[in-house]
């Protein structure tokens, strides 16, 4: 099923003559200058209220900014519209912002500015997001090279030592500073303000109810036990109430995309493990599905079942861990977390046997999976699944009716689903607010269509509902797992063709998304027909869900803001990539 692009094009062209500049495969190239009005029309008249993905791509003579919009209307859910605008001028690249239409563009446009140097006119807060102010250049442009740059494509010559290169030199040996740094011509450290970017502790006095008070800025993180890693937020406080909150990300920016554009298509699979390192299996799933869509590859049935089994096990573990962490933040220090980690160990043992690695599995392959499993493994997996089923009950007995939990979480961080959609929030957080939107249902991939499961929803989207949502989804995963374990074909290939070292992907570009435990994980891939991606972008649900953090937290106590952050469920590896 695909969207009727011709109809969309016709409708747009009637409303805005000349708006569709060109049609490029499955993408419409829209008129850059009229983008805001076209976008408003798309949202209000055509029902595309859900902008999930914005990024860019650098071609030698121009830059493209790409957008993917979807609809949440029940009759239009499903495949969305992909469009782009063209930026011919590389030096003074400008595009009007769509933040005013879809708030989800906010962080993503900042990222495009940071990585590509495309200026979004009218953006409320266009600062670098992953790197720091003062950084030289925009790293994802193709003509930008880092200090350790060797070649455009892997495998690098230096990694094949013989015969031309008998003594390969390490990256450090090639760089003057013996470190991964470079300074531009004429850089004088004294001209720079090398200080920290902290806001002043106190803001100017304000009068509230006739009393002079001073709002305080509190810096939480990047080293903080409750920020799930190296996330930092600057919280403005009035007394203990949050008045504003600025997320500061990028402390774990590992240049996933720049490295990904050098790697072979296969070579990216282990890197995707390191995105959301709580559920590596599902990241791989998302990536191989995207590449297979480009290749038009079929996957053997047994492999599909194995994929779903691994993926859903990962989802259960993810949800249990999230709940465990969540209770850490609520003050139930350690106990629920240790319970969750215990369950994780059982699943990891299964993963380790199947893939050879405990945590970074590298199990999925383009066209299949890496290794088959034995009948004994399947029997053990059945046992683990019924154990998980029991354990979810146990979690519920311990936590669901806990009075302290209810009073700390009811009404905290609530947000309507309409607003969440505008912020681009996806996954359990969105569903807990009442919108039944699960990519496994609306745009099925793999063999999810053949399973009987429901998409649970709750009403308010507060922290309590998000907790119940995760429990309910874990139960549905168990349901899928039970069916998959019953129906998996006893034998069969696990790989389409033989496991090639290298794949060539035909020319083209696509945005492909799956329902990751945390939300919509998407990959935007561009191929020039070679052995490595020309453009490789990860649409990170964690980063985009964070965009709603401020709106969810304002008006609540600082201690609740921490809980709200936990309930959004982020992994910094994926936020920062």
């Amino acid at each position, binding site marked *: 099923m695909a969207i009727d692009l011709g109809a969309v094009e016709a409708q747009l062209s009637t409303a805005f003559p000349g708006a569709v500049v060109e049609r490029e495969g499955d993408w419409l190239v829209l008129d850059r200058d009229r983008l805001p009005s076209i976008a408003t029309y798309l949202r209000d008249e055509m029902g595309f209220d859900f902008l999930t993905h914005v990024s860019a791509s650098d071609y030698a003579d121009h830059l493209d900014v790409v957008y993917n919009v979807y609809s949440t209307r029940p009759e239009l859910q499903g495949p969305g519209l992909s469009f782009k605008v063209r930026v011919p001028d590389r030096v003074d690249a400008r595009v009007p912002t769509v933040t005013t239409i879809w708030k989800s563009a906010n962080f993503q446009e900042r990222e495009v500015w940071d990585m590509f140097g495309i200026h979004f006119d009218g953006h409320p807060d266009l600062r670098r997001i992953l790197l720091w102010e003062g950084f030289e250049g925009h790293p994802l442009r193709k003509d930008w090279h880092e200090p350790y740059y060797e070649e455009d494509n892997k495998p690098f010559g230096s990694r094949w030592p013989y015969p031309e290169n008998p003594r390969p030199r390490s990256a450090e040996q090639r760089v003057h500073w013996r470190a991964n740094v470079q300074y531009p011509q004429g*850089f004088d*450290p004294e001209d720079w303000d090398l200080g920290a970017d902290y806001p002043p502790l106190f803001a100017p006095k304000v009068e509230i109810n006739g009393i002079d008070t001073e709002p305080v800025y509190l810096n939480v993180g990047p080293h903080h036990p409750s920020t799930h890693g190296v996330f930092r937020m600057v919280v403005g406080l009035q007394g203990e109430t949050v008045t504003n909150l600025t997320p500061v990300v990028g402390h774990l920016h590992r240049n996933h995309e720049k490295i990904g554009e050098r790697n072979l298509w296969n070579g990216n699979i282990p890197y995707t493990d390191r995105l959301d390192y709580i559920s590596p299996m599902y990241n791989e799933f998302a990536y191989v599905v995207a590449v297979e869509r480009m290749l038009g590859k079929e996957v053997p049935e047994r492999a599909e079942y194995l994929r779903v089994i691994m993926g859903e096990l990962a989802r259960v573990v993810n949800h249990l861990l999230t709940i465990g962490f969540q209770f850490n933040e609520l003050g139930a220090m350690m106990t629920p977390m240790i319970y969750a980690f*215990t369950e994780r160990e059982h699943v990891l043992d299964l993963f380790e046997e199947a893939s050879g690695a405990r945590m970074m599995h590298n199990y999925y392959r383009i066209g299949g999976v890496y290794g088959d499993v034995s009948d004994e493994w399947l029997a053990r997996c059945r046992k683990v699944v019924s154990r998980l089923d029991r354990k979810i009950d146990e979690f519920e007995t311990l936590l669901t009716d806990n009075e302290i939990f209810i009073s700390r979480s009811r009404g905290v961080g609530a947000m309507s689903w309409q607003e969440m959609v505008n912020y681009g929030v996806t996954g359990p957080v969105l569903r807990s607010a009442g919108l039944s939107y699960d990519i496994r249902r609306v745009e099925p991939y793999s063999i999810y269509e053949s399973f009987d499961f429901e998409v649970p929803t709750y009403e308010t989207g507060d922290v309590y509902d998000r907790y119940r949502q995760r429990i309910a989804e874990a139960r549905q995963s168990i349901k899928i797992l039970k069916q998959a374990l019953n129906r998996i074909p006893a034998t069969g290939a696990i790989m389409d063709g033989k496991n090639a070292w290298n794949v060539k992907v035909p020319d083209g570009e696509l945005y492909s998304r799956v329902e990751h435990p945390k939300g919509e994980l998407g990959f935007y891939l561009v191929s020039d027909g070679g052995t490595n991606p020309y453009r490789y972008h990860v649409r990170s649900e964690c980063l985009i869900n964070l965009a709603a953090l401020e709106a969810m937290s304002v008006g609540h106590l600082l201690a609740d803001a921490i809980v709200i952050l936990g309930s959004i469920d982020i992994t910094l590896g994926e936020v920062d990539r």
Partner: protein
Amino acid sequence: MSDEITVPDELKGNVFITKLSELYGWGRKYSLWPMFFGLACCAIEFMAAAAARFDTGRWGMDLARASPRQADLIVISGTVTKKMVPKIVTLYNQMAEPKYVISMGACATGGGPFKEGYNVVSGIDQFLPVDVYVPGCPPTPEGLIAGYMAVHEKIQNERINDVPWYEKDPIPKAPVPLLGGPDLIDPRHMDEIRARVRAPQSAAVGGEPEKEDA
């Protein structure tokens, strides 16, 4: 003075004779409090090591402290980025002596799979004195525990009369790198950077290769 000490018969089994240094090391090694600090994927295995199955509490390490002032051990558990490294070094400097550093995983040790990245520091040992390196990506909890054991061994072998934190002179702080310009600046390179930009035909760029045998 003879080293021989005789224990009266009635006290045998109740009195143990040891050297002060050994007692000192023995006491310290079983109360090593790690910092509640995680950087990336390795941090998850760091937590798994503390959870029920591997239970580092068996060696008195179950109390992870969020404040560097109360921690004895910092496990650099993940990729060290340029944006984060000033904070890591500051945290290290805030820890009280004696303190130990474990570099956990390929990233903390040398940049790991992300070494070529523009925001990645190739190894925390450029800035901090590392006591134990634990290989792996990520190291298994067993591997991390082996690293802990190595730190224990090191502590056990330290002698009270020559440990640096009882010396008169203060122990120098680790250099805190500066961030805010175009790239990370190691304060130890400050003079050289300045000299290179002032020199005619300045070549303060990073990409310039070293001589083959440098």
